[in-house]
């Protein structure tokens, strides 16, 4: 079957009424998640997994997985739309990927052009979403055809590359990022070893036999960690929200932002495909690019609409691009995609090259739903931008306890054990301490998800080669991945030694 035919089938799935509803719920919650400063896309997705798991529990596995992933992905890219709202209206980015939007977006709001800035970021996000989806459709087939030839050695090296990329870019200290990665891999070894059936680090506690649940750890580290941070360091900056007068941008605005949107979309997409580099880097690079290409770079920082259009397109395109390694290679390139992958694995669906053959309805249904979801976001965001601006004012005293309660509900509804609730609380405290002291927690979650896969592929490869580690270096593709992994770690170190500033990807 051709790609177009698959895409058509995907649309047939995405247009089922319950999947339309799921996409709608996903993007609405995603926008709210983006607007609320306390929750990022990562904890937003993690918190909704149990809810979707329950709603879809009556459906056949494959359809249930498709519906869940449609909702969860909606939260992910919806958050990219929502993140810009607070940047523009409050000068407080809702997500780290919207930080550069504050530079020109808030200035535009102060000049009474808040509506235009919000509208152009919605339009830019929409175009970027479509661009990245076209890229996804075009690249999915060829990439999974290449990946299907991978043996365990190639997989091991590729996952190593994924981890190296995330550790190389996360946080201020690479030592700390690597420690978090290794620690996450270690946590992943707890439980019964899948190959030999031997219990490791369980100390005869039956609760540990199945290993630590990644969902509990992710929600604890991100959602509760953020709640504890806000409780402890109550920030009293109650900024005034800029007024929105006119929503539709003028013709001149459209003309000024058309090229930046296209540039931002393409740039963001390719940065998103790279493992480790995500929406934050994409928006930052896009801003630099626009400033460089602009005829009047001095107007940047004083409300130049290109400084909103470019980065906002780029961060949305990056979230679309990040789906490519996840779906075609089965390797998440960021914390949020790691959580999406964990959700798929919960349904016993393994992302990777076989996904397109074994579960085309999941893969293509998701891709098609992203087209629809982006359209919904555009329609929603233009008229409802005032409503979402109100969401910012949700009082923290109600919001924070409710986030704790939702986390408890989410974890308990999936795990049914009190043990996981204590683990959740413990992870919350640890998550707060770690991220406060610049220990990035995203690599930990990624390593926890990838750990068992890395180990199994390593052992399979070594079984093939009779225990000879040369197999990872003699297979050409595997060698390329290992060299790339080493480069990801070494280049930032070299740059640092030369005194150059290195940008860091930070995901919340």
């Amino acid at each position, binding site marked *: 079957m051709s790609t177009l035919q698959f895409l058509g089938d995907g649309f047939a799935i995405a247009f089922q009424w319950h999947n339309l509803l799921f996409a709608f719920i996903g993007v609405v919650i995603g926008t709210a998640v983006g607007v609320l400063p306390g929750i990022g896309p990562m904890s937003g997705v993690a918190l909704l997994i149990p809810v979707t798991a329950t709603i879809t529990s009556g459906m056949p596995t494959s359809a249930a997985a498709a519906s869940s992933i449609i909702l969860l992905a909606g939260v992910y890219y919806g958050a990219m739309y929502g993140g810009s709202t607070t940047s523009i209206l409050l000068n407080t980015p809702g997500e780290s990927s919207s930080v550069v939007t504050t530079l020109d977006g808030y200035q535009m709001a102060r000049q009474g052009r808040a509506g235009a800035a919000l509208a152009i970021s919605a339009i830019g996000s929409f175009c970027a979403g479509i661009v990245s989806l076209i890229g996804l459709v075009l690249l999915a087939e060829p990439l999974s055809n290449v990946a299907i030839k991978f043996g365990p050695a190639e997989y091991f090296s590729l996952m190593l590359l994924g981890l190296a990329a995330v550790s190389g870019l996360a946080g201020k200290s690479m030592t700390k990022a690597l*420690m978090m990665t290794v620690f996450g891999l270690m946590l992943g070894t707890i439980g019964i070893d899948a190959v030999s059936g031997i219990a490791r*680090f369980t100390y005869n506690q039956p609760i540990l036999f199945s290993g630590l649940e990644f969902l509990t750890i992710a929600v604890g580290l991100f959602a509760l960690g953020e709640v504890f941070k806000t409780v402890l*360091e109550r920030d009293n900056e109650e900024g005034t929200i800029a007024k929105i007068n006119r929503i539709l941008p003028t013709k001149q605005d459209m003309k000024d932002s058309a090229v930046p949107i296209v540039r931002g979309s393409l740039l963001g997409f390719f940065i998103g495909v790279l493992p480790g580099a995500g929406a934050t880097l994409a928006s930052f690079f896009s801003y630099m690019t626009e400033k460089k290409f602009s005829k009047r770079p001095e107007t940047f920082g004083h409300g130049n609409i290109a400084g909103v259009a470019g980065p906002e397109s780029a961060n949305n395109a990056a979230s679309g691009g990040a789906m490519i390694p996840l779906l075609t290679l089965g390797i998440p390139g960021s914390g949020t995609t790691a959580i999406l992958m964990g959700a798929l694995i919960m349904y016993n669906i393994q992302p990777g090259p076989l996904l397109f053959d074994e579960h085309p309805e999941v893969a293509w249904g998701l891709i098609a739903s992203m087209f629809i979801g982006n359209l919904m976001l555009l329609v929603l965001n233009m008229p409802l931008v005032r409503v979402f601006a109100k969401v910012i004012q949700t009082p923290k005293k109600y919001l924070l306890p*409710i986030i704790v309660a939702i986390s*408890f*509900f989410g974890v*308990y509804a999936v795990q049914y054990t009190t043990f996981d609730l*204590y683990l959740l609380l413990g992870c919350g405290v640890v998550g707060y301490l770690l991220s406060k002291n610049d220990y990035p927690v995203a690599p930990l979650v990624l390593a926890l998800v990838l750990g068992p896969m890395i180990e199994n592929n390593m052992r399979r490869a070594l079984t093939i080669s009779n225990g000879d580690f040369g197999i990872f270096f003699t297979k050409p593709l595997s060698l390329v991945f290992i060299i790339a992994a080493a480069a990801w770690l070494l280049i930032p170190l070299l740059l640092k030694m030369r005194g150059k500033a290195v940008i*860091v990807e930070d995901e919340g």
Partner: protein
Amino acid sequence: MAAFSFRGVSKTMSKTFDRYASIAFLLIGLLFVIESTKIASSAYGSTVGPKIFPLWLGVILILLSLRLLYETFTYKSESASKEKLQYKKFLIILVSAALYAFLLEKLGYVISTFLFLLVTFQTMERGRIISTIIIAAVFSFGIYYFFAEFLGGSLPGFPL
């Protein structure tokens, strides 16, 4: 939500925390190395047994912790800004969350959630008892009935 920051520019990392953390992770690595040597190696199936991977990880973590410990001696200055932390609020919320976990199966979802929300709402900001009671009640009943009754999920409803 600290955005992109520049490597090398910011030197506000906490020296004390990093030192304790590096020692803690060193011990964890050590524990992993010792414990993984105790894992029985399987003769069946693979030349590489279940102990190799955790053993290596332990060794790598030990090396990284030593590196971090070394780095803490090169930090230029202790972080100067000491912000006031609201320990009291945090501790009340943490303890009530632990109690919530403890009582969830004993009191049932609705009552324990209601009590937890009531206590934490009041901890965050004293006063407006009636509106906090309403919000806590709506949330706990709402989630329970939506999830357990409407969606058919399973939650411990009320004490038996």
